[in-house]
């Protein structure tokens, strides 16, 4: 293919900070975050939507960072695991994951936490089955999931004051 590829400008708010870059259209959102902005908390596993390691929040909703072009987030608001961590909104989840050993190698953990944040917003009192269903798109190859479900259940109970 011989056509000239034009770089295009992306401007967005990432974890509360305004950014602007020139990028190639083919750059995925997760590669942009990792390689251009050095936000390496979002991971790249399968690059075809199956594993959930690349999960980030765009305009309030979680998405697969590998299945969205960075340029599609132009003008939008992006939150990554670094943003969620810095704001303190997931401090209880981080503590519960640590205490219950729900993060082993940690590769899946950012994606799982991003997905959990959205789940608890939509459904503050999920059953164990509902937790498993919401997380069905996030692979963990270490924990066997049981510890993850335990940690999330603990936080849901604590948040409603139990």
């Amino acid at each position, binding site marked *: 293919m011989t056509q000239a*590829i034009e770089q295009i400008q992306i401007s967005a708010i990432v974890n509360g900070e305004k950014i602007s870059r020139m990028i190639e259209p083919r750059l*995925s959102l997760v590669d942009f975050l990792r390689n251009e902005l050095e936000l390496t908390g979002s991971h790249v596993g399968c690059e075809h939507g199956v594993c959930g390691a690349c999960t980030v929040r765009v305009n309030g909703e979680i998405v697969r960072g590998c299945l*969205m072009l960075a340029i599609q987030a132009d003008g939008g608001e992006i939150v990554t695991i670094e943003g969620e961590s810095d704001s303190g909104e997931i401090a209880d989840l981080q503590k519960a994951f640590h205490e219950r050993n729900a993060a082993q190698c940690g590769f899946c953990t950012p994606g799982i936490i991003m997905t959990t944040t959205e789940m608890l917003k939509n459904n503050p009192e999920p059953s164990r089955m509902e937790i498993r269903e919401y997380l069905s798109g996030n692979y963990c190859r270490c924990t066997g999931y049981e510890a993850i479900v335990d940690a999330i259940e603990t936080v849901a109970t604590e948040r409603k004051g139990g």
Partner: protein
Amino acid sequence: MKPSAFNYAKPSSVDEVLGLLSEHGDEATILAGGQSLMPTMNMRLSAPSLVIDINGLVDLSGISSDGDSLRIGALTRHVEIENSPEIAKHAPLIAMAMPSIAHPAIRNRGTMGGSVAMADPAAELPACLCALGAEIEITGSGGARKVAATDFFRGLYDTDLGDGEILTAIEIPKISAGYRSAFDELARRHGDYAMCGVAAHAKVDGGTISDLRLVFFAVGGTPVAAASASAAMEGQSVDDNSIAAAQAALEEDISPFDDLHCSATLRMHYAKELTKHVLTTLAAG
């Protein structure tokens, strides 16, 4: 696993999309939710030189009620359909199917039009649309035309959508009084594409079934209407005998295949079990 280089256009009207499609021909690809296109581009199974992002076409998004039918814009996201009270009330079959489509992060982006245009043989929505007698609205340079869902899906990933055309909406007749729907599928993991699934829609009058439409997915190249099994239930109540007759008739309707996930024999077994489940559900209301 990175896509090959392409240029990017983000038009804001259907006319602009049609202009770009006619100018660039099959070098150009429409990008909707990207949840099927991006994986194929990442794997370089598809390498367009121009990606036409239709996410700026706000008019293509949303659900509206229009007399006896519901209109779902092509760009309406799965999550919006899943949470829509209109869909739950007037097209319960679609509401039942939504949670089985992929996972929440994918449903936040994936669109109705993308699922229909993609025509994955294991996808839920094409089968539901066939069972409900829905119509697909396609717009080209000559204006808009409508095709029955049952004629739209022509073969494996092959549809009636022509070069230079864009899918603009889906129209679903609202459920009539006395009708019920049921849906079931088997997948290895919640949200994965099914190994076998079925959409069912019928009139149920005091336990008696009529006008049954059983449509299977993941058993052939397109959604497969089980005409013989459906006919076997006409005027019957749901009991062991009628279920057995419908299951036997299913042998004439579908001829499943072997693949990585399960054998043809197992698929046929699943199809028969799912038939029993949906018939029992229809009768129970």
